[in-house]
């Protein structure tokens, strides 16, 4: 399986709003972060959710976001981050990345 991104790559979450079952949370769509870890390859939950148990596997990444980037009113420490599991098809390269 081809893995598109490496640990440390800057990535942006696609700003998309399809209907149906989606595991990419709303609050990070369109936001940029950095690949923290490659979690492995898993079946796509968007297809499993409709009974396609034999769908292809996809790389799953743990992407780190700055809390201050996510919430305009964030009042916690500056270095706070949030890590979100995101499947590869939801990610595209962001500025500053080495894609």
């Amino acid at each position: 399986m081809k893995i598109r991104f490496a640990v440390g790559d800057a990535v942006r979450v696609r700003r998309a709003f399809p209907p149906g079952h989606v595991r990419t949370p709303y609050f990070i769509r369109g936001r940029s972060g950095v690949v923290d870890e490659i979690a492995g390859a898993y079946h796509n939950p968007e297809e499993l959710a409709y009974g396609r148990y034999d769908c292809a596997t996809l790389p799953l990444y743990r992407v780190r976001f700055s809390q201050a980037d996510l919430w305009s009113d964030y009042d916690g420490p500056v270095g706070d981050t949030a890590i979100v599991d995101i499947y590869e098809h939801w990610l595209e390269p962001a500025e500053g990345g080495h894609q």
Partner: protein
Amino acid sequence: MSGPRRVHDMGGLAAGPVDRLDHAHEPWEKRVDAIRMLCGKRNLLRTDEMRRNIEDLGPGVYDALSYYERWCASITNVLLQKNVITVDELGRKMAEVEQRWTEARKP
């Protein structure tokens, strides 16, 4: 951001305090869990299908149901969609159980 936000996808929204008290499960809740496991073993139900059918309950119903009530509604919908049970069978069985319950509670 723009675009429709679905009712379950509430990360970052105000949701009030979290109830951290532990509580025992009711017998019917354990049964729902057992049915879920059996459906999984028979390759009829995956976690993602459970979630999809819970999300598809829609606003209102999603908010009104408790955790295991959502599970029960979701499993029911999956079994209907996969032709494991029919609406008629389910309706008749529910009426039968209700009748049994009413009889059992008569003084």
